[in-house]
């Protein structure tokens, strides 16, 4: 293996070398992955550890709104919530980022100015990714020019599933180029990849092509993020760090609604990739309704009584 800055340069030389590399990755034991994720999900996190986990999870949230009905007002309201998730309790940390469509990036940037909360934008014909490379790159440039510091792109699942790995690679690399200094998160849409082997291959493909983060799902396809899929991706970033010397983050997104779910993911991160990844720079939770549940659990721990949704914002 070459030791240049791109140790996988020769892998990406052609579709056949890419195929040989990706299909040479060890297969995923589906039953084993499911069982391990389920086992780690039974860990009991209580009291002080739970309090820390809740605050960490809040700091990891990418507060997301990706609806056709999004308005400037809704994005501003969400940004206010991102900075002060619970206005009645200043000890609640801010979330990591807000995630919006490209046309609303400027609104979010303005609303979050000086707060430290980042602005992420989906791009590249989200959520299907069905457009030409030119349009995808232009979409990315639009979001970056508007001030997005993170770009969530989708891969071309059609090309990936038909074995055209080079197209997927080149598109990711081109979008990475268009990102400039912005971080690139690559959405694999694992719900459409059918097997864990494909999830592992797509993870490696994205990382080789330059992804800063790999993300499970758009949130538009069911199933979205699941524990076993995230396990496979966490193993991939761990192995990629060992092989290529570059650290890549992971972001499960979609379907994470409860504090219990979020804590299961944190356990999974700790036990798979290691505690180095337990940081908003390396692990994110793409969610919207999760935040209120985290706040309710936090309030329950502080007040000793079960909280109710009437006391938090409707998103």
């Amino acid at each position, binding site marked *: 293996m070459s030791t240049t800055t791109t140790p996988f340069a020769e892998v990406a030389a052609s579709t056949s070398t890419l195929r040989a590399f990706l299909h040479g990755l060890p297969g995923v034991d589906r039953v084993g992955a499911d069982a391990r994720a389920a086992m780690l999900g039974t860990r009991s996190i209580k009291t002080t550890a739970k309090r820390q986990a809740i605050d960490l999870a809040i700091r990891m949230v990418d507060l997301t709104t990706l609806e056709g009905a999004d308005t400037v007002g809704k994005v501003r309201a969400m940004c206010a919530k991102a900075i002060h998730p619970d206005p009645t309790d200043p000890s609640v940390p801010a979330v990591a980022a807000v995630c919006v469509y490209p046309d609303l990036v400027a609104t979010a940037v303005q609303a979050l100015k000086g707060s430290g909360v980042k602005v992420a934008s989906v791009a590249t014909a989200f959520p299907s990714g069905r457009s030409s490379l030119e349009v995808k790159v232009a979409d990315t440039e639009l979001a970056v020019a508007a001030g997005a510091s993170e770009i969530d792109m989708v891969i071309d699942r059609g090309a990936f599933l038909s074995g055209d790995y080079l197209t997927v690679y080149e598109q990711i690399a081109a979008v990475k180029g268009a990102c400039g200094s912005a971080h690139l998160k690559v959405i694999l849409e694992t719900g459409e990849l059918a097997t864990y082997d494909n999830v592992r291959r797509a993870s490696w493909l994205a990382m080789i092509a330059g992804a800063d983060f790999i993300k499970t799902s758009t949130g538009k396809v069911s199933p979205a993020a699941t524990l076993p899929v995230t396990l496979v991706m966490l193993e991939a970033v761990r192995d990629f760090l060992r092989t290529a010397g570059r650290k890549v983050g992971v972001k499960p997104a979609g379907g994470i609604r409860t504090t219990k779910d979020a804590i299961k993911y944190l356990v999974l991160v700790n036990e798979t990739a290691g505690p180095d990844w337990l940081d908003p720079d390396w692990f994110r939770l793409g969610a919207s309704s999760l935040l209120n549940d985290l706040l309710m659990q936090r309030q329950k721990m502080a007040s000793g009584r079960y909280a109710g949704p*009437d006391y938090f914002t409707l998103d």
Partner: protein
Amino acid sequence: MSERLAVRKTYKLFIGGAFPRSESGRSYVVNSSKGEFLANASKASRKDARDAVTAARKAFPGWSAATAYNRGQILYRVAEMLEGRRAQFVAELVDADGVGVRKAGELVDAAVDRLVWYAGWSDKIGAIRGSANPVAGPYFNLSSTEPTGVVAVVAPGEGPLLGLISVIAPVIVTGNTCVVVASERAPLPSVTLAEVLATSDLPGGVVNILTGSAAEIAPWLAGHMDVNAIDLTGAGAELAVTCEELAAENLKRVLRPPTAKIDWLADPGTDRMTAFLETKTVWHPIGT
């Protein structure tokens, strides 16, 4: 031929239309009025109570938006199903209360009649609690009733069937959903009632029944910010005070325990229904 093995019933909780065991895995021994062992019942924990509130909240939009006619029909259906299990309830009441078969039969009949009576109220309660109000201005002014929301009910210790029906029916007939803490001493009829409810077209989560210690569970329900009202009929004086204090935090409606022993066979009146109703008043301009 070998003797057939007994198939014993596991007495479980009733949450969200399902019959889970207690999350805590606990159970407690239920004895008959004569002190003989009857069964082990689930001993619900605060987390079961929390799950029950979640289920009740989830069921509330659908149940409160159902037509009054539909709610009445479903309550009538519950009465039908109860009637079909008459023999089983009679046997359980004989065990639980030490009453004779004939008296137990009367109590089951009264419970069925009580359900039918409340079922009839579903589309009439609005007529006695709603009004067109005379106002000094060019407005129609109309008041109508709305359900309070999720109601926690501490069921009476006495009257394991009739008492239980008499506290559940008035809460749900108006569109509330409820979490019921059944009689600690005699919980078995409540579990059988749950089986009746589960087969009566009653949407899951409208009635949730927990068995166990009221002193343990009721304060959690009273303090729960997502519970809108609490009926303390079955709470002792001391527990009632604790619960009422906790209920003040989110201004729950509180129905205090009775000062005198209730005769469940007597005409219940409409008080239990109206205790868990809100009044919505609409001002509508007349003309242009």
